[in-house]
């Protein structure tokens, strides 16, 4: 292990190197005062450096332990088990759930894109409501964070969808437990709205700030199970000249969101707009923010019009087949397409 891998400031690193400390082991037997004298720095600063270095050393020792070969790693077998036991967030459209393997999966970042009016926000609101379906009904019983960058979140619509969801739950209850006492955890539509934390973001700086702050927020509200950003694109498409900066900021944001999804076992859903791209001599629709962003999300779903019907297409996923399914936006929210005789079409 070398000094250059330590998370300390550049000047401290420079001082260490010029004083001849190149490896971690050379620091291990030093006292803070000795190091302070050598580097001509204050004793507290020297203590900080030694602390960082010993932490690193400790990590190394742990790595050699018998349990895990690499610290923080997980075996594929454990992951499979975890994946099978994890509950996905239903979309309320069984055809869509089928191609998604049961719904939007937690621990992953899912990007949903499509033309204006295709139903991105509708799907997002539906997910914010569905994440709250109690465990008794096969749901997650969690809460939702809705980060609105476009101002397109409609509370009235959320209430309608929540009402429909509560209604469905009642029906399900009466079907399944006719002779039993009514199930606990029946929810009022307004309760659903109370569990949606709504952030209205007006600049890209605020967007970054919210994402940075989420870790602390979710730590305080542990039952948040979905984070929705509607849309990730808006502030980065308008009045944004420095493309290099844009790519960097978006990349950083994607990493933080992925980390968040893993750490708190929650689903991250990002909505994206579309743009036209010149390819093979003609213009074609594609999701916005460019090719480097396309790598950022784990799953990518494109919503599109096929004639007069709405379809969802899995464009990218490490575990799902690319397939498309029709859905419709109804008064109750996202539902199966009415004129759906062909069921799911696998490509």
């Amino acid at each position, binding site marked *: 292990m070398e000094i250059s891998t330590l*998370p*300390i*400031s*550049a*000047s*401290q690193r420079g001082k260490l190197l010029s004083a001849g400390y190149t490896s971690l082991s050379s620091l291990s037997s030093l006292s803070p005062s000795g190091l302070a004298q050598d580097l001509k720095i204050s004793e507290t600063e020297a203590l900080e450096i030694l602390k*960082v270095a010993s932490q690193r050393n400790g990590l190394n020792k742990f790595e050699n332990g018998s349990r895990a070969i690499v610290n923080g790693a997980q075996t594929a077998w454990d992951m499979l088990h975890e994946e099978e036991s994890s509950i996905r967030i239903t979309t309320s459209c069984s055809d869509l759930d089928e191609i998604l393997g049961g719904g939007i999966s937690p621990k992953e970042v899912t990007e949903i894109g499509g033309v204006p009016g295709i139903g991105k926000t509708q799907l997002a609101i539906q997910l914010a409501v569905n994440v709250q379906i109690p465990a008794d009904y096969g749901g997650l019983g969690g809460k939702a*964070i*809705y980060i609105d960058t476009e*101002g*397109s*979140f*409609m*509370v*009235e619509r*959320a209430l*309608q969808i929540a009402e429909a969801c509560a209604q469905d739950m009642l029906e399900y209850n009466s079907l399944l437990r006719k002779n039993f006492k009514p199930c606990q955890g029946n929810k009022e539509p*307004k309760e659903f*709205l*109370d*569990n*949606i*934390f*709504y*952030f*209205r*973001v*007006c*600049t*890209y*700086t*605020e967007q*970054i*700030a*919210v*994402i*940075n*702050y989420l*870790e*602390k*927020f979710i730590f305080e509200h542990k039952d948040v199970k979905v984070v929705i950003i509607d849309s990730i694109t808006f502030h980065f498409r*308008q009045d944004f000249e420095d493309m290099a*900066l844009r790519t*960097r*900021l978006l990349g*950083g944001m994607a990493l933080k969101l992925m980390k968040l999804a893993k750490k708190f076992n929650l689903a991250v859903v990002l909505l994206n707009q579309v743009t*036209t791209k010149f*390819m093979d001599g*003609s*213009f*074609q*629709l*594609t999701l916005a923010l460019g090719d480097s962003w396309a790598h950022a999300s784990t799953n990518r779903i*494109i919503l*599109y019009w*096929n004639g007069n019907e709405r379809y969802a*297409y899995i*464009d990218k996923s490490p575990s799902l087949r*690319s397939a498309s399914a029709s859905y419709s936006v109804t008064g109750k929210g996202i539902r199966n397409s009415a004129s759906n005789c062909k069921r799911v079409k696998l*490509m």
Partner: protein
Amino acid sequence: MANKLISEMGLPKSTAHVFAARNIITAKDALSLSEFELMELLDVGLEEVTRAVAHISEFACPPYQTALSVLEQRIQNENMAGHLPTRLKGLDAALCGGIPFGVVTELVGPAGIGKTQFCLKLALLASLPTSYGGLGAHVIYVDVESKFSSRRMIEMGINSIPEIFQKEGLAQEMAGRILVLRPASLSEFTESLQQIKVSLLQHHVKLLIVDSMAALASGEYGPGPPRQHPLGWHISFIKSLAEFCRIPVVVTNQVRSQVHDDASRYLFQVQRIAELRLKKIPQNFLLILLLLLEFTGLMLLLFVLC
């Protein structure tokens, strides 16, 4: 929130000084850099940088509300929970009560369908006193194509709500609440938007109408898909006006025919269509071959007969 000063966020003094010394003044400056860039620039360790970034983020982050509190606030503070009824039963039901406050509503249709008539009616409804179900407020009407007609509006009022318009002076009072702007060009419109922003805040304006948005942009399109919409700035400005003044905004738009080509499809759709076409080719090919054979056979027959 993006321009909040770092020096006023209560960071530890030493850290705040380091930021100030490197000319990182606002939250925007700090958050536009990655943690490693900050480490390089500020010459401090990772731990301190992450702590500072988390602190700045918390300050720059907008406050949250639950969806329920948003709804309750609207029910409490606004007319019909934030809606301007159109008095068309079906439409009002579909819109949850009428034209919503705080967002932009676009009216689209071919020439002569009644977009301007719709706008006139909305202006009239908003200017009605609250006791008659209106908003009792000023209306700003941006009339780009000089289609606004006071006579027609009063006529509508007399026919649809005679009990009010026959009262002495009320027609005048209501028409007096509607301010009509007639910008001649896009740049003039840009200027008047800035003024509108000020007057929305100062006066009791509860509805903004732009008739029509399309006329402003006409003639400014080049061939091919435009890189940046000429009205992009205006639309986002109007949108923010609607949201922060919590008023309904109505804009009209014309319709254009659209060529359905690959530009409205995704790559995977185009590929699928190409595959379908490929499948069709062999059949055609066989048909042509058959025709050719038949033709040569006929020729041979003729040849033999001769």
